[in-house]
């Protein structure tokens, strides 16, 4: 890569008059890497440093030791919050996937104009402030809101759509939708649709061709989108705070209470470490499972 980007290096090999200095210096060969230095510095300052500080705090505040962790795992309520956070994130991911998969598929088969419209529909809310959208959902979903009023016309409800897990999931799914649609679309649009024609010529019904050829080839998009949505939903704060029930709080709300309300920086840090470690563990297991699956599929032959 560096050789391709450095004209001096390729010029010498092409047999043209070599530069008098002979081989280019280290700096000349590696200068493209300097381009990432500013971004690296910003990340170090505003991400790595505070995260490291929080993690260190988990083990040192109020005094060195694992006191914060024994507190966290000592209370069943805390563990319940952690479990609830993961199950909410899982649900949000599954609902996003169920909604986004056909949507992204439609985008790949639509005309360019329709595709642009579909993309706009996904992206438009994305460009609106998260707070505005969350409050909008509050207005729509409250007991006297539009949705319940409409259902009331048919003698249904009112349902507790806000201050509940339903409200949290509705808000999360809408906000996270682009993160699922875009990776899915990006992978799906790269799938050669002529493979489906080929599958049909070999005797596969159109639905079988879709399931046996298109769906397997779209799995990288499913993995990318799901990972993105899952991990993002783990850290959601505003949406569960506004649309959720205080009795069903998620871990980010708990952290906020510990740090902002009770000034327990160490406990907040401990929760962050636990969340981070659990996420890494789950992702690692998922990665291993996928690799093992691929291996078994290859070995079965």
């Amino acid at each position, binding site marked *: 890569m560096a050789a391709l980007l450095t004209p001096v290096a390729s010029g010498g090999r092409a047999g043209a008059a070599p530069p008098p200095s002979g081989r280019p210096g280290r700096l000349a060969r590696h200068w493209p890497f300097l381009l990432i230095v500013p971004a690296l510095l910003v990340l170090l300052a505003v991400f790595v440093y505070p995260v490291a500080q929080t993690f260190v705090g988990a083990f040192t505040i109020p005094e060195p030791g694992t006191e914060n962790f024994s507190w966290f795992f000592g209370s069943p309520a805390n563990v319940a919050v952690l479990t609830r956070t993961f199950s909410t994130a899982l649900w949000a991911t599954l609902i996003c996937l169920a909604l986004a998969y056909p949507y992204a598929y439609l985008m790949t088969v639509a005309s360019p104009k329709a595709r642009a419209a579909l993309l706009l529909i996904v992206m438009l809310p994305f460009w609106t402030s998260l707070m505005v959208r969350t409050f909008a959902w509050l207005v729509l979903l409250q007991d006297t809101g539009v949705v319940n009023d409409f259902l009331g016309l048919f003698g249904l409800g009112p349902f507790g759509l806000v201050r509940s897990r339903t409200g949290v999931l509705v808000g999360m799914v809408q906000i996270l939708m682009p993160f699922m649609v875009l990776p899915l679309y990006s992978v799906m649009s790269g799938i*050669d649709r*002529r*493979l489906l*024609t*080929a*599958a*049909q*010529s*070999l*005797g*596969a*019904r*159109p639905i*079988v*061709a879709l399931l*046996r*050829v298109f769906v*397997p*080839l779209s799995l990288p998009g499913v993995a990318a989108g799901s990972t993105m949505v899952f991990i993002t939903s783990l850290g959601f704060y505003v949406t569960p705070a506004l649309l959720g029930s205080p009795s069903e709080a998620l871990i980010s709300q708990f952290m906020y209470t510990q740090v902002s309300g009770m000034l327990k920086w160490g406990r907040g840090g401990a929760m962050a470490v636990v969340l981070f470690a659990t996420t890494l563990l789950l992702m690692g297991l998922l990665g291993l499972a996928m690799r093992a699956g691929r291996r078994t599929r*290859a070995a079965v*032959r």
Partner: protein
Amino acid sequence: MPVDRPAGGTAQTAASTYPPVAAPAAAPAIRGARIDLRGMTKRFGASVAVDDVTLTVEPGEFMTFLGPSGSGKTTTLNMIAGFTDISAGALEIDERPVGGVPAHKRDIGVVFQHYALFPHMTVEENIAFPLRQRRVPKAERRRLVAAALETVQLPGHAARYPSELSGGQQQRVALARAIVFSPRVLLMDEPLGALDRKLREFLQLEIKRIHREVGSTFVFVTHDQEEALILSDRIAVFNNAGIEQVGTAHELYERPATLFVASFLGESTILRGTASPDGGGSTLAGDGFVVRAPGRLEGGRTDAALVVRPERLRLTPDAPASASGDASGGNAVPVTVVEEIYLGAARKLEVILPGGARGLVREQAGALSGLRAGDRATLRWHPEDGVLLPDDPTIERIFT
């Protein structure tokens, strides 16, 4: 080779250079299907991609659709495969109408130019795919896949993924996948178009061998006339959404029905002029020459083109007595040699005819005239060696 193939000299020239593989003495595995196209038409909005094509492909025949891009040959193939709806007309396979049958129920093998192998499946899974769709038991599936890999000479590659194979190997796998379920019809859409010349020539012979071994009816689409000549029992020449002529390579070359066929298939010298009946044949008067030609134009047409193949022409250094012929009744036209092309066993001479049009003469190495570029000479041929056709002004635009 099936016995019920239409008679006539076919392009079997490649048989002598056949690779040393199993002798094709064994009877073909299956009997190919007969395909009838009756007035098949395909319209896309206002434009007509295929216009009223009628053709019968005999059981076990190797039929090639030859034509330039946009001539409707691929659309016709897609209609046979069931990928494209038929706008008008009928399609029958073994006298059974299949126009409304979806592609996956037609039992037709298709090989695509772009291979269309499933990238997430191994070679074996790819080839087993049509068998799985047909609920073939696993043991039988393994046997058939191994046999198909044997047929395309790729044993030992079953566990590979398509991305690990070269283009030629991928196309062999695609071929194996298309024949493994013993379809009675195999369609191939420019299957060798993406390969380099040497590999293409080798695979042509392979396809010919596989056709003989399998026995299915093959329909092969190409724009490469040489490929069509090597492979086909019969060739259908497509142009402007329709078929210009169907026949064996020999018939198309020696007796082209239209000027398009004459110029698309092989090289030729075209003399244009006005034809008038003269005895049993015609006289063609052009710009600076008057020659005799066999046959007459139909329908009283007079604007004609006389087509003569390069190997039927001779060049002599002398000047003709007149621009209309010599004592022995042969045709003679004064020309100027402009180019010599050395071909080893032969050479080609490009000449300028009196009207400015170009002609092409082929001389075998043993019978060279000794003429060089710049020489003035006489172009001679026997009147019966020409083919008189109605002129088609569109041809000049494409082929000169």
